[in-house]
């Protein structure tokens, strides 16, 4: 059975290579250096956004269409430093987008096109997926991420102080790495998974205290409820919730 699958995958990928369409869009920002916005809301998109040392937003589009010309349907509009990328419905695309390293607002959403990946950017990230994971690595700023089936992996270089964040998924683990000097109120719940934290979670009178298992560092509660924990004296709320899969809170090394 395994071998059969393998052959099938090889066959499919060959088809892909043949049928691939490719397109590049270069978008000049009207106010380079100022906070820009990137909107991508495409149902079937795998999105990969990466910060680079440049002024333009560069969008590379790959499609699986048999007719390469159709890939030209992906459009990007710029207005007042706000870039909106759009594609016809039902069209599967892979977007590789390079953005300036200056501060930006990223609103990226997909339904079932694959993973949403962002790395090396600064700013405010809103990432929504349904079937597919989310990863945001080496981020300076804040992240709000949700998916239904897929992992969420986020690591911060710097955290915007005072900005609340939220991470939620149903089927998939959640790994978040915060800087060691994080100040936040963590609110964590995993229905079927375990919760691990590098940070000491300090409880308060209003909420049941999470008990830490000394052996493996797992936080657990005897009752089915949220784990509340202040970190670094407290700060904005960081909500972390899943149903299946473990939750890990790391200190960024």
């Amino acid at each position: 059975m395994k071998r059969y699958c393998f052959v099938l995958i090889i066959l499919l990928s060959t088809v892909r290579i043949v049928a691939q369409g490719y397109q590049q869009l270069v978008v000049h920002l009207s106010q380079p250096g100022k906070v820009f916005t990137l909107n991508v809301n495409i149902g079937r998109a795998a999105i990969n956004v990466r910060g680079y040392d440049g002024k333009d937003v560069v969008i590379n589009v790959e499609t699986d269409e048999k007719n390469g010309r159709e890939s030209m349907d992906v459009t990007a509009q710029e207005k007042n430093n706000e870039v909106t990328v759009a594609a016809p419905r039902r069209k599967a695309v892979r977007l590789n987008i390079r953005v300036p390293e200056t501060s930006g607002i990223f609103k990226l959403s997909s339904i079932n096109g694959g993973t949403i990946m962002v790395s090396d950017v600064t700013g405010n990230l809103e990432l929504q997926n349904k079937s597919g994971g989310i990863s945001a690595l080496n981020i300076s700023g804040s992240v709000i991420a949700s998916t239904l089936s897929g992992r969420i992996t986020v690591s911060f270089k710097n955290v915007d102080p005072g900005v609340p964040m939220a991470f939620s998924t149903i089927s998939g683990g959640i790994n978040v790495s915060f800087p060691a000097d994080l100040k936040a109120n963590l609110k964590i719940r995993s229905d079927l998974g375990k919760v691990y934290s590098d940070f000491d979670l300090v409880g308060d009178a209003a909420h049941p205290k999470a008990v830490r298992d000394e052996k493996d560092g797992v936080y657990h509660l005897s009752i089915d409820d949220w784990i509340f924990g202040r970190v670094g004296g407290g700060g904005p709320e960081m909500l972390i919730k899943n149903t299946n899969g473990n939750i890990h809170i790391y200190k960024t090394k």
Partner: protein
Amino acid sequence: MNDCEEYRERLADWHMGRLDAAAAAGLERHLNNCADCREALAATAFVLDSINNLQAPEPPANMKVDFRAMLDDFKAKEKKPVFRDRVWSWLLQPRLPLAYGLIILLCIGGAYLLGRSNKQGHEIQELHAGVQEQKQTMMLAMLDNPLASERIKAVSYTNDLKKVDDKVIDALFTTLNNDPNVNVRLSALEALAALGNHPEVRTGLIKSISTQDSPVIQLAIADVMLKLQEKGSISPFKQLLKQRGLDENVRDKVKQTITKLI
């Protein structure tokens, strides 16, 4: 020199003409010979004259009434009626204009201070209410912010509001039912769950069960309903189970929740 002390005690009475003739004559003789006592007399006379010349301020028309009311209150509190007559006869002594003057002054000052501190207390209260109102206005405005993190922040402000009114609850429900971001809806749900003592919150949450399409929220609502022990949610949950294409995790959770609630 011991005499001097004795004489000086009488200086005030002599100045006011209250000494009998013999005592007055003796004092006058002494005054003729004692320069120190003359100086003392001058000082005493000066003080007494100033007091006598002091004009008692005319009390406002309602002062007497207020004062009496205050006094009655005070008396009622103290409950010492035995001394009442004596107190009054003492108070009504004609030779105490100074004391009256002082009392009236104190009353005016006291009333002024009392009024001011009341006003201050009132102002602080008003200021506090103003801050609350401002916070609420800010929260309601921030719920429309294009940034999801700002909207979550707005939702979290409800924890700081002393009194949550219908406007806030309505706004939270609007967010729970319409916000484009799942996590913002999730935080609104959590904020509403904390307001479970409001009956309209419970009804709203029950109503919301059928309108939520995100499995994340459906799961979270099931948790909230279980925590609030809201049996009214059973029938909409049963309806939800009939939905085609319902997420399997949600199906399991809702079934469990119904069993636990029954």
